[in-house]
C-alpha cells in the first residue's frame, strides 16, 4: 500500500523532473509562451490572456555555452549567459515574448540583448518599482500592470477581461496554497519530503498551465501523507541564494546529505505572494496591492519594511532552524552584498552559518561537500 504510494510518488516526481528541467520552447508550443526572467512576474495576467507564462531559470549544468560568451561581459552571472545561449541556439525559438525586470543591472540588459537578437519576440522590461514605500507605489504598479495587460492584448488580438483575470487569480491562489502546504511539510517533517523533491514539484509548475500544476501538487500532497519515513539526525538549516540563478540539483543534494533544509528561497518568485489575492473588486488592483503589501523578500527588491537581517532572523525562527547556509551565485552582486550583511547579523546572534558560492553550470561538488560536511560535523560536535 505505502509501497505503491511511494512508487506512484516516484513516477510523479519523474514527470516533474522532466518538466522542471525542460528548456525547449518549440515553434508549435501551445498554449503560446511568454518567457520571463526572475524573480517575480504577475503570471495571472499572462494566464488570463490564454498564454503560458514560462519562468526562465537558466540552462543548468547540462547545456554547453558556445554562442553567448561572445555577447556577454566577463564578469556576469551564469544565468544571463545560459539564458542568452538558449535564445541564440534556438532552444527558445517558440517563445512569443521575453520580459525582464529591474532586479539587477545584468537582468535589465537581458531585455536589450533579447531585443537586438530576437526582433520577432516582444522583448521588454516590466518595470516593477524599487520603491515599495510611497503612497503612490500601488497606483504605479497598477499602471504598469495595465500596460502589460494591453501589450498582451495586442499580442493575442483581443482584450483581457477582468473576469478572465479574476479566474486566473483563483487558480493561482490555490496553487500558492498548495505550495505553502508543501513547504509546511518540509518545515514540520523534513524527512518526509526532501528539498530536491519539493524543488522539482514547484519548478514543474513553470512549464505548465497552473490548473495542471495544481493537479500534480494535490496528487503529491496526497501521496506524501502515505510515505514511510526514516527519521535521521541532521541539523536543521535554512538555505538562501536560490531566488534567481538556480543551484544545481547536485548542490542541494550535497547539502541535504548532511543537513535538513527546513526553509529556503529557491524559486521564491513562484510563491512571491504570501497570502490569497482578493478575488473580488478590480483584479489588477488586487494583484498590484498584493505585490506591495503581501509579498516575500529577496536581495533584489528594496522595501524599507523588510530589512534583510530581520527577515532572515524571522525565517530562522519560523522554520525552527539552528543554522543558516547563505549562498550567492558567482558574480551576483545583490546576493554578495547581502551575504556579508547577513553574516554579520548571524555573528551578532551567535547563529552558526556557512557561506557558499555557486554557479548553475558547476559540475564538481567535492569541495562543496567538504565544506558542508565540516559544517555539519561542527554542528553535531556541539
Amino acid at each position: 500500500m505505502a509501497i505503491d504510494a511511494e512508487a506512484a510518488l516516484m513516477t510523479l516526481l519523474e514527470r516533474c523532473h522532466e518538466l522542471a528541467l525542460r528548456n525547449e520552447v518549440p515553434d508549435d508550443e501551445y498554449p503560446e509562451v511568454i518567457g520571463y526572467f526572475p524573480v517575480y512576474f504577475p503570471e495571472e495576467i499572462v494566464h488570463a490572456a490564454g498564454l503560458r507564462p514560462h519562468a526562465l531559470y537558466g540552462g543548468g549544468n547540462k547545456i554547453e555555452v558556445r554562442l553567448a560568451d561572445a555577447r556577454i561581459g566577463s564578469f556576469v552571472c551564469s544565468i544571463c549567459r545560459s539564458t542568452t545561449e538558449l535564445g541564440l541556439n534556438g532552444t527558445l525559438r517558440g517563445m512569443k515574448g521575453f520580459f525582464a525586470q529591474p532586479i539587477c543591472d545584468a537582468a535589465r540588459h537581458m531585455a536589450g540583448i533579447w531585443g537586438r537578437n530576437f526582433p520577432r519576440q516582444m522583448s521588454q522590461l516590466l518595470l516593477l518599482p524599487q520603491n515599495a514605500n510611497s503612497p503612490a507605489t500601488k497606483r504605479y504598479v497598477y499602471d504598469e500592470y495595465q500596460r502589460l495587460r494591453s501589450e498582451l492584448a495586442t499580442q493575442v488580438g483581443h482584450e483581457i477581461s477582468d473576469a478572465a483575470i479574476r479566474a486566473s487569480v483563483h487558480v493561482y491562489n490555490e496553487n500558492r496554497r498548495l505550495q505553502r502546504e508543501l513547504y509546511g511539510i518540509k518545515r514540520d517533517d523534513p524527512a518526509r519530503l526532501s528539498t530536491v523533491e519539493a524543488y522539482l514539484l514547484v519548478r514543474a509548475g513553470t512549464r505548465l498551465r497552473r490548473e495542471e500544476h495544481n493537479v500534480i501538487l494535490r496528487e503529491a500532497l496526497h501521496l506524501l501523507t502515505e510515505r514511510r519515513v526514516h527519521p535521521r539526525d541532521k541539523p536543521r538549516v535554512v538555505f538562501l541564494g536560490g531566488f534567481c540563478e538556480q543551484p544545481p540539483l547536485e548542490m542541494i543534494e550535497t547539502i541535504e546529505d548532511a543537513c535538513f533544509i527546513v526553509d529556503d528561497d529557491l524559486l521564491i518568485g513562484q510563491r512571491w505572494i504570501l497570502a490569497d489575492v482578493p478575488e473580488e473588486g478590480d483584479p489588477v488592483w488586487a494583484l498590484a496591492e498584493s505585490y506591495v503589501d503581501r509579498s516575500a523578500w529577496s536581495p533584489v527588491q528594496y522595501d524599507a519594511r523588510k530589512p534583510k537581517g530581520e527577515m532572515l532572523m524571522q525565517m530562522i525562527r519560523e522554520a525552527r532552524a539552528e543554522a543558516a547556509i547563505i549562498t550567492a551565485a558567482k558574480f551576483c552582486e545583490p546576493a554578495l552584498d547581502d551575504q556579508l550583511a547577513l553574516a554579520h547579523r548571524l555573528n551578532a546572534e551567535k547563529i552558526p552559518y556557512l557561506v557558499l558560492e555557486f554557479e548553475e553550470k558547476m559540475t564538481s561538488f567535492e569541495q562543496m561537500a567538504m565544506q558542508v560536511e565540516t559544517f555539519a560535523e561542527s554542528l553535531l560536535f556541539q
Partner: protein
Amino acid sequence: MQYVAGIDVGSTQAKGVILDEQGNVVGEALLDMETNMGTAAERVFALALASAGIDADAVAFTVATGYGRYRVTFGDLQVTEISCHARGAVAAFPATRTVLDIGGQDTKAIRIGPSGEVVDFAMNDKCAAGTGRFLGAASFALELPLSELGPLAMKATTPVKITTTCTVFAETEIIGHLAKGRRPEDVLMGMHQAIATRCASLVRRVGLTPEVTFTGGVSRNEAMVALLQEVLGMPLNVSPRAHFMGAIGAGLYALDNARAGRRSVRVREAIS
C-alpha cells in the same frame, strides 16, 4: 644580397626568421622562453642568422612582434602579433580570410579583407584569458609533456564535459574528474573540446569566412586541429611553419621597409 629579420618574442617561446629579398625563409630558430626576454631575443636572432649562414651586417631591417616586442633592443620597428600573424597567414595561404591563433597569453581571431588587410579582430575576454594555457594546466595535472597531450586525447572514447572557461577552475575540474576515476584520455579530450568551443565562438565573433588559417604552436596538436575543423565545419589551413607565422609576418613587414629603402641602424651595435 640583402636580408631581413622577423623576431617573435612570446610568453613561452621566442622565434626568429631570416627572409631573403623574395621573402623566402632562409633561416629560422625557436627557443623556449628563459627568464630574460631581451637576451632570449638576441640568442634566437643569432641562431636564425647561423641557420641562414649569414651575419648580422647582412640584415637590412628587423621587425619585432609578440609580447616581448619592446624587449628586442635591436628591433627597428614593433608590430603587434595580430598584424604579423595575419600577414604571415596570408603569405602562406593567399585565400585566407580568417586567422586563428591560440597563444599562451591571448587567443586571437582575425578577419582578413580582400587585399589581405586586417578588417577586425577579437581576443578572448579576461575570464577566458590564456585558453591556450588550458593545455598547460592539463600537462601539469597529468604530469605529461605538452607534445603527448594531442595523441593521448585521440584515444578518448567517452570525453568528459569541461564547463568552465577559466583556467584555474579547469585545473580543479580535471583533478576532480581524474579522482572520480575518469580515464586521462577522456579528460584530455574534454579539455580539447572546451578549447575548441571557445576558439570557435571567438572566430564567430569576427565572422567565420573561409579560408581559415590556424597559426601558432598549438596548431601542431592534431587533436585540436581535428576538433576545430569539426566545430567550424570546414577545413583549416595549417602550415608546417605555423608556429613561425608571427615571425614570418614580422619579416615581411621588415621586407616592406627594406624595399622602401629604410636601413637598420641598431643591428650592428646590438650584436657586436
